[in-house]
Each structure stands twice: as C-alpha cells, then as structure tokens.
C-alpha cells in the first residue's frame, strides 16, 4: 500500500525542503499522505502551514492510532488531517513516536491553536505525550482515571466508577450482579 516514491506536489515539496524527514508516502486515489520522522514532525507541520504552495491553514483533525494488534513498530501513530482553503486541498500527515512505553511527540499548538484540545484527547485516550503543550491534562475522562482507554491493551470490561455502587439486590429481587 505504501508507495515510497509517490509523486504529488505537496509530497514533493515536503521531500525537497525537509530532507530525510519523509519516511514513506502515498497518494492513493487522492489520499495524499506522508509519514515523517518524529523528530522532524514539528518542522513538517510548520512547513505545511507556512509554505504558500502548501498553505494548509485549517487543522481538520488530530488523532492517533494504536497499532498494537497490527503488529507494527513503532506502536503509536499520530495523524493530522489538514485542509487548505486557498487550494481546496487536503493532506494527511502522520508521525510515529519511537518509544512504545512512553510515546512523546512535539506539540503543534504553536502552529495550530486548534490542536490544543485534540492533543489533550490523544493524551487522555492513548497516552501520547505532547511536549510543549500549554495544558496537557485529561479532557474527557476524570483525573482519577487510571490508564488510557483507547489503547488496545486496555481491558474492554474494565470499569473505574467514581461512585461506589450500591446494592441492587434490594431493588431487584432475584437479580444477581
């Protein structure tokens, strides 16, 4: 699927300006995607934002993938969906933090302020840390929550209630929980 020699103007510019940053890329059916090294990720995002030929001025989404069961290394992949209102073009940028135990990538809040909450969500759900984020704390789960629920090794039946459960047997005779 991955075509390391994809020819697309944005991918070409990215390759030309950030030498050795692009690990792989593909442009399958207009799905232009580039994977960059984690240490060049911030540079790549800034380039895509500021270069006038690219000019991706809108961060559509920032999310992550846990590739644990895809048996691929590194385990986590941070995905950016970008849109350029000037060129009416879309682009996907991915990066893979190398440390599987404590994945860390640079925050892009200074480039896209809209990345603030999505990066907090990725930290909350996947446990990927973003260095340079102004306020990296949980956004959906409560502070008492232990772990990151969208990780593939989070037990699917694990519950962490905030309120201690009451005995239901008084209400529902014959029902055992």
């Amino acid at each position: 699927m991955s075509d390391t020699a994809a020819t697309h103007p944005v991918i070409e510019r990215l390759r030309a300006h950030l030498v050795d940053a692009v690990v792989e890329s593909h442009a399958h059916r207009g799905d232009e995607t580039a994977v960059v090294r984690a240490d060049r990720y911030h540079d790549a995002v800034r380039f895509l934002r500021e270069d006038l030929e690219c000019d991706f001025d809108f961060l559509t989404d920032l999310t992550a993938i846990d590739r644990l069961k895809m048996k691929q290394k590194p385990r986590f992949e941070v995905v950016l969906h970008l849109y350029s209102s000037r060129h009416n073009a879309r682009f996907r940028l991915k990066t893979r933090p190398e440390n599987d135990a404590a994945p860390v990538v640079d925050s892009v809040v200074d480039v896209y302020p809209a990345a603030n909450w999505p990066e907090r969500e990725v930290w909350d759900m996947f446990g990927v840390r973003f260095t340079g984020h102004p306020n990296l704390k949980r956004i959906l789960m409560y502070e008492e929550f232990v772990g990151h629920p969208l990780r593939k090794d989070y037990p699917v039946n694990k519950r962490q209630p905030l309120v201690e459960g009451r005995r239901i047997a008084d209400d529902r005779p014959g029902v055992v929980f």
Partner: protein
Amino acid sequence: MAVEGQGQGFFTSRLSDGIAWARKWSLFPYPFVTACCGMEYMSVSSAHYDLDRFGAAWPRFSPRQADLLMVVGTISQKMAPILLKVYEQMCEPKWVFAFGVCTCTGGFYDNYATVQGIDRIIPVDCYIPGCPPRPETVLDALMKLQAKIQASHHSLTGGVRPPGRCNGSLP
C-alpha cells in the same frame, strides 16, 4: 379510631390515601437530561402527549423543589457524582424514573465510560426501556408510578419508600 404512629387505624389509613391522592396528581419532575432521550422528554411533556393531564407537567430545575427525578439519557462515570448529589438534594418523598435504556442498563454503551444502569448509584422506581422510549411508554410509567404512590403508605411525619420495582400492584 386512634391516630397512631404506624397508621393502621381507619383515620390514618384514610389520611394516607388522601395524601397519596394529592401527591400522585401533583408530581414535580426534575428533568436530568444528558442525551438524545431529552428530545423524547420534550415531546412527552409538551402539548401533544401532555404530562399536565397527570399533574406532572411543571418541570422544576431545582432538585429542592422537585419530587420526581427523571434521569433522561446516558450517565457517564464522570456524571455519576453529580447525579448522586442531585438525588441527595431532593427532599423526601421522592421518586426516580430511569428514562431510556441507557439509564436502565447502560444500553449499548457497554464500555469504560458509562454507568451500567443508574440503579448502581440511586434507587429507581420506574424503568422505561426504549432507545428512545415512545411517549406512550413514559405515560405508562407515569401511571404505574401513580399506582405505586397510591399503594404506598404515607405519613405526615415522613415518606416511607417501599423497596421494589413499581408494577402498579404493590401492597
């Protein structure tokens, strides 16, 4: 007949029936609306289905002024302490509706974020299934609750909540 504490005599039982009659026709719901079931709550409470026919139309948005807690919509683990606090702020006598399958059992949200039925937090009088429930189902539950209130013992010194589900035929 003497007026005794447990209300077994003729006068107290008539008084209990009278209080029950008054209470069951003047329920003040507190709609604890968190999700899409709220649209169905709006439907059942407005003109077409008209909860006011049962004297239960006037929503009080303060738990201290309400006696029927309608939990309408998914309750997440993060929301659970808030729901418990709202319930504890209500004065006795008070009743609880689990409105929609999410509040009954968690519904299809069998996951890390959702309380698997609000009866794990607070006692529930009527379970209204459905995703969302039809307004008729809600009216049915309301009539069953009225039957439960009528069948319960009431004293002037404090409400007594008999345990168990409301099925309209409690002792």
